[in-house]
């Protein structure tokens, strides 16, 4: 029977002061007792509207019920049947605007902690002795996957399970996309990612790093002499935007991508044991308020900054970061400067960042996105003394592949165009999904797109 309790079972967390100096995971995860205690809160609704909030329609009450009754293996199977990356999604999905926003319990109480339960089940699964997952990859048609972010990984796994020999080509020296170079260890331990990638390898998926499609190998070569019958493009949206304000090229100004890549992919936090450095001064200002910005400012604290600041031209209401990351950032001492728009980066005589000139904003009429448009307050300019500025104002799809590939249509934002309601691009047997199509979005949307595309590729190859 469902049990009424107002609050979610709290997630065990590491102490804010301690954790803000290392890269250990912040959330420690539920134990079995927590998980079952929380799972009892689910009403097992007749019409489980939580599922409508989930982009891949995980049968939520099913798996939650199995947790409550102690059938963890069963819960894992239900979960995995619809979400191929549960350990990742349980950690990084914005549940508060997805499943948990819909949850019926949430009307009067706090919603069921679906995300925490998802993570619990996935972690339980990872801790079990490995099960044999090998399948026969005996179909004649080979499929190439471009990019090893969540979209590419999921698409590869699904196709392998359907029996296709699959090769993933990744530009960087390690697979995972944003899960590798963007989202930090304290939120998504690389062990979790490595485990997922290991599963794919066990399935027989081949992962070739250090190959850039469009540079090392062209699309024509892939589909011609190399003999791939279909291609999935999951190249993400990795091209960082800059603001175009004066001083952006001063020493000490980074894009969030560069800052995070130096730490996550290149391990600058371990310099000089690892060879790549990162420059962090005492005061770091991060411009933007999405997940990337929160990751950046919290990473800055962990690599030595004393003061980490978020500078955002809108208010906290318009912030796009996950609520939990915002809370964690507050606990770790991050300062928030809302309604503050940077207009110039100031430098010292040697060309190093010394300050950030900003103007205060107020909220005006709603803009095209429906969010209140921030307008500058005249005469409110002021200078914030800072040593680093990190821009986290968004990413666009990378044009590398488009530059050298004929017949691939893209829109004015550089996103690949797919046929309505499918993932097929303007080129025959070429499919696409994830951030490369949608622009910067979420892990679950990318994973979902990879899964759908795998089905479509299967149909395409069988027709």
């Amino acid at each position, binding site marked *: 029977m469902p049990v009424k309790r107002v609050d979610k079972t709290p997630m065990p967390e590491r102490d804010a002061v301690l954790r803000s100096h290392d890269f250990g995971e912040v959330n420690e995860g539920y134990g079995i007792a927590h998980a079952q205690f929380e799972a009892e809160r689910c009403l097992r609704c007749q019409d489980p509207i939580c599922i409508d909030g989930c982009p891949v329609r995980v049968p939520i009450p099913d798996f939650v019920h199995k947790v409550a009754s102690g059938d963890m293996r069963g819960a894992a199977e239900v979960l995995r049947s619809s979400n191929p990356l549960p350990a990742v999604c349980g950690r990084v999905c914005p549940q508060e605007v997805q499943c948990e926003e819909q949850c019926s319990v949430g009307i009067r109480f706090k919603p069921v902690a679906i995300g925490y339960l998802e993570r619990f089940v996935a972690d339980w699964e990872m801790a079990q002795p490995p099960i044999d997952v090998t399948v026969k990859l005996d179909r004649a048609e080979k499929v190439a996957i471009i990019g090893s972010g969540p979209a590419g990984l999921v698409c590869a796994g699904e196709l392998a399970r359907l029996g296709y020999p699959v090769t993933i080509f990744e530009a960087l020296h390690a697979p995972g996309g944003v899960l590798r170079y963007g989202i930090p260890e304290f939120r998504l331990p690389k062990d979790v990612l490595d485990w997922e990638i290991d599963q794919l390898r066990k399935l027989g998926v081949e992962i070739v790093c250090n190959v850039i499609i469009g540079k090392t190998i062209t699309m024509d070569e892939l589909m011609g002499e190399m003999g791939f019958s279909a291609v999935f493009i999951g190249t993400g949206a990795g091209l960082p935007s800059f603001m175009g304000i004066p001083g952006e090229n001063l020493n000490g100004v980074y894009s969030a991508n560069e800052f995070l890549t130096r730490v996550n992919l*290149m*391990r600058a936090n371990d310099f000089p044991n690892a*060879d*790549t450095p990162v420059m962090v001064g005492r005061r770091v200002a991060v411009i933007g308020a999405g997940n990337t910005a929160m990751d950046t400012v919290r990473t800055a604290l962990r690599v030595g900054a004393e003061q980490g600041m978020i500078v955002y031209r809108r208010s906290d209401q318009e912030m796009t970061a996950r609520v939990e990351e915002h809370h964690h950032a507050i606990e770790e001492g991050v300062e928030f400067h809302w309604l503050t728009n940077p207009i110039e980066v100031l430098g010292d005589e*040697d060309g190093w960042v010394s300050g950030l000139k900003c103007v205060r904003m107020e909220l005006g009429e709603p803009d095209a996105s429906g969010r209140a448009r921030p307008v500058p307050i005249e005469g409110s300019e002021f200078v914030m003394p800072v040593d680093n500025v990190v821009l986290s104002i968004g990413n666009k799809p990378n044009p590398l592949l488009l530059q050298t590939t004929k017949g691939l249509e893209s829109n004015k934002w550089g996103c690949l165009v797919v046929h309505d309601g499918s993932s097929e691009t303007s080129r025959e047997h070429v499919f696409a999904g994830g951030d490369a199509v949608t622009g910067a979005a979420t892990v679950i949307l990318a994973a979902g797109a990879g899964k759908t595309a795998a089905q479509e590729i299967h149909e395409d190859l069988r027709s």
Partner: protein
Amino acid sequence: MAKILEKRPLTPITKLYKVDAPLVAKAAKPGQFVIVRVRDGGERIPLTIADYDRDGGTLTIVVQEVGTTTRLLGQLEVGEEILDLVGPLGMPLEIPVEGHIVGIGGGFGAAALLCLMRELRRRGDTTTIINGAREKDLLILNEELTEVCDNLELCTDDGSAGFHGFVTERLAQLIEGDGPGRPDMVVAIGPMPMMRAVTETTRGKDIPTLVSLDPLMIDGTGMCGGCRVTVNNEVKFACVDGPFFDAHQVDFEEAVRRNKMYVKQEAESKDRTDCRKLAVGQV
């Protein structure tokens, strides 16, 4: 992984490698580069593709040892592997002008002229290479360069070989009509001060000039923006838009300043590789 097939010291701190990289060799064009990493935890550094052999599937790279990664690379021997090698990156070099093309190389830069000048000569251009160094022993690849161009001009600061003086002084003479004569176009690859001086030598003389900018890079795919340079008041990512740019439009001051961002850390890192047995393959 790219296996080292051949290694040749050119100077005490410069080494030429021929490596097995069939996919990159097949796609490479003059002016492009690769990014390599030599050990777990290692940095990703860009190196110009000096030459390539499509049939043999090999690439030639020339490395000048200046810091941790280039020195670790310099320790690798024939039969060993370069841990990661990705490419070809950057835009192939486009030479829009026909006629007398002068390539100027300094340091490892001379190597980068190998495949470029060969291609230009094949196209029918008259080609001159000005190869400069401090002294005779530091001039690299003279034999190979002779084969790929019509005129090879040597310059040394101390006069121990060829012209006594800087490459730019010899270039100025050519512009006046001396030797192989006035260039229709100049391409300079080498240390920043040299490229900057070349740029000033041709400025206002109606000689289009390209330089190969070498900002710090990480991914080389346009993902980080660390390699940004200002050209004609516009921000460009050197790894995807370059590395070659119209010399007369380049903001050199900014480029030089940005390259010095990590001098302190680079020195710290290099000291460690000095005082400890260099262990390639592990940190």
